């Protein structure tokens, strides 16, 4: 019985049907299903399915956005239950678009997929100063710092963040990830970041694996 309703939640989520997801999450709770199970098996796994299709160019940005909206609608209902049960996120990620750059569609998708992978995400927005990345990461005790840049003219500002981490002597505390249209694996090497990925789903997968490896 439990499996059926959770499967339905996942399916409605994949179609981006927020209202149906909300209703079914409430029903599942009423049936006494554990909030964590609804979250992981219904919402987050449904979102990762959409993410997988996005990565393979089977669906595009609009489909991911409506799915994420449905995911958030479900999570909002579960939240009080999760807090009450003292559930911990799998990790914390601070992400933003670097100084001088206003492109945020890709960065927002990375934030959504990181949430789907179980991260608590702190989104700093666009045009973010190097110091702001560092301060926020230190403040929340982040595991991952994610930076987005879509312009060749703002890519160097990723280096500034890494320099600021080094200057503070905290570089080793963080898994530093970078991405955005002009960013490449070799640029990652050049500036000394840890991971580059070409899409948001891979970003979430890599972040999760890296955090698990670090905590193990």
């Amino acid at each position: 019985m439990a499996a059926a309703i959770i499967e339905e939640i996942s399916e409605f989520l994949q179609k981006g049907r927020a209202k149906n997801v909300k209703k079914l999450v409430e029903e599942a709770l009423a049936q006494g299903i554990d909030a964590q199970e609804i979250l992981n098996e219904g919402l987050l796994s449904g979102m990762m399915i959409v993410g997988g299709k996005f990565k393979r160019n089977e669906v595009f940005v609009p489909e991911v956005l409506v799915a994420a909206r449905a995911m958030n609608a479900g999570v909002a209902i579960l939240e009080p239950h999760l807090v009450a049960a003292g559930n911990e996120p799998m990790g914390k990620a601070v992400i933003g678009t670097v100084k001088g750059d206003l492109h945020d569609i890709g960065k927002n998708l990375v934030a959504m997929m990181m949430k789907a992978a179980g991260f608590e995400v702190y989104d700093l927005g666009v045009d973010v100063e190097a110091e702001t990345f560092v301060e926020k990461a230190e403040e929340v005790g982040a595991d991952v710092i994610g930076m987005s840049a879509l312009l060749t003219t703002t890519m160097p500002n990723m280096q500034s963040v890494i320099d600021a981490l080094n200057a503070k002597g905290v570089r080793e505390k963080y898994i530093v990830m970078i991405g955005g249209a002009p960013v490449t694996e070799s640029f990652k090497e050049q500036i000394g970041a840890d991971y580059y990925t070409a899409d948001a789903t891979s970003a979430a997968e890599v972040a999760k694996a890296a955090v698990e490896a670090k905590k193990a």
Partner: protein
Amino acid sequence: MNSIERFYATVNREPVDRPAAWLGMPDIHAQPALFAHYGVKDFHELKLAVGDDFYAVEIPYQSPNSSAIYAAFDWYMDGNVDAEERTLTTPGCFAEAEEPEDLEFFEWPDPAKYIDVEECRRRVEMAPKDKVCLGVIWSAHFQDTCASFGMENALMNMIANPEIYEAVDAKIMEFYLKANEIFYEATKGRLNAVLIGNDMGSQRGLILSPDMVRRFIIPGCKKLVEQAHSYGLKVIYHSCGSIADVIPDLIEAGVDIIHPIQALAAGMEPKGLKEKYGDQVSFCGGVDTQDLLVNGSPEDVRLKVRELRSIFPTGLIISPSHEAILPDIPPQNIEALFDEAQKPGKTSLV
């Protein structure tokens, strides 16, 4: 051949003495270094100094809150439509709109009030008679509709409430068709081509599915193309990013030239495009601005131009893969691009 003859030959994919080349619209921050390099004092002089085949003009637009037609709509209702701050994702005034009635409060600008017909004429008269006079008019109805809701809301509406999306798009199309008509009437006989378009590509593929492009973008494209063609103008259609999957749709909509072949985006390799579509449409762009023009040497740029010339003996206007040249591109590389494009005759790679 003069620039105009070369341009029409390129559009018709007939032999050219050498490829046409277009500088694009350098970003305001990139202009000082270019002016200094070419020893000129303004953009007008720069266009002449680089040896451009084109002379680009924009539609003059002056409303109480905007001095650019691509920023005509006050979506944030704060009187500030400064292009620098228009990021498309900021929720616009239709963010919460669900029904057509929810759009009624908005004051749609009347282009007739804000386009100065005399100024339209003056601008095209600035173009040397032997250059291709190109109206850079955008008419970016998809991007504007995105801004009106906030881009994420707009893309979600395409799935959850397509009617509201289409209602806004229709109003925006009405505005542009009227604005363009004023411009085309005023500049009759002086304009050769227009650049219109919408950014619908990312580095890896389309931002929205090919089906959605067909439903929400191509119909507007068709209307704009028909209007331009009715004035005898050739149409260059712009979209950044990887748009390979909808090139057949743009061709069917009547587009003459596809811009800017963002060379490093997935599926946009010049060779493949030439093989697949080279006998149906022409292209403009191809000289990569994401790495080559920024990090390469003038010699690297020359090599690329030679390669492009050998792939496209005709049917390609050589140009940077983004019209807004940024300040990180050394002017020497722009000079190399034009110099190599302007060498007469057939080129070979060696």
